[in-house]
């Protein structure tokens, strides 16, 4: 096989690859490290504000309302409520999940803030606010201090939560 090297064979140059690459040494800080270590053990760990009593997950180490350090760790359950969601139908570069898929805000039981999770094992047109979902974790030997330890959330089978229980978290 002879390589094509001449302009007659290749045509003129019209584009140039110009990748931008940034190499970081990232630290999530002490508080989020506790959350990440919890993920490594297959559980969600939040922190409670000593002033207002709200539980943040993942915790940033302080209460955004009261400005005080959150020192008490709280083990949260595996089950929560979908407060709101988005069905993703648009393909984009680097997409790793087959479309359509559901991206939802999940309010874990016992937490006072929701966080984003992938919802699977349900047709996308059946997702709804108030749906009760549970986390599905990777195999125990695959757990790492990363959100990759949570494969996704799926319907838990419980009846939908009352709107009153999550209306303050929308």
């Amino acid at each position, binding site marked *: 096989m002879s390589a094509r090297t001449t302009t007659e064979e290749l045509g003129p140059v019209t584009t*140039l690859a110009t990748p931008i690459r940034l190499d970081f*040494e990232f630290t999530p800080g002490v508080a989020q490290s506790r959350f990440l270590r919890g993920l490594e053990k297959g559980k969600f760990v939040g922190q409670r504000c000593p002033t207002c009593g709200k539980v943040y997950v993942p915790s940033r180490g302080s209460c955004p309302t009261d400005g005080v350090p959150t020192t008490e760790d709280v083990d949260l359950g595996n089950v929560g409520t979908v407060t709101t969601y988005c069905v993703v139908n648009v393909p984009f570069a680097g997409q790793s999940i087959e479309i359509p898929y559901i991206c939802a805000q999940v309010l874990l039981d016992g937490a006072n803030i929701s966080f984003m999770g992938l919802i699977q094992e349900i047709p996308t047109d059946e997702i709804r606010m108030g749906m009760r979902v549970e986390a599905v974790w990777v195999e125990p030997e695959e757990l790492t201090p990363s959100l990759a330890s949570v494969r996704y959330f799926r319907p838990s089978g419980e009846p939908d939560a009352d709107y009153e229980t999550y209306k303050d978290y929308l």
Partner: protein
Amino acid sequence: MPESEALHASHVLEFPYSRSVGPVIGAFLTGLRDGKLSGVRGAGGSVIVPPTEYDPATGDDTGELVEVGPGGVVESWAWVSNPLPKHPLATPFAWALIRLDGADTAMLHVVDAGGPDQVATGGRVTVRFRPAGDRIGAMADIEAFIPEGGAA
């Protein structure tokens, strides 16, 4: 590791952009792929390398492509003793502004010299292209400049 300590990890953020180069820079890059250096004739007759679509002094359209080099003169340089992974050469080298023969402007590239004592302002260098099959139409098709008649 104690539970109180913060985790850390390396993290890479990369955007795989590509851009269209237009007719003038495209012709320059096509020339590099063919193992040729080219500039463009500016408004006052000066030769601009690398070529631009517009004369930087007057804003007028530039004219014909002109072949330049392969030799040139170092106008300014800085020695890099400890190359980083992103640098074009793995061994110590000089960044240099090189005015190619036939050009009126200097172009930034690297000089692969054995040491800083082998690079000089006003010194002559010549181009070393990558092998034809490795050239893709990019600045790195020029592997380096080397001192004219020099060792490296």
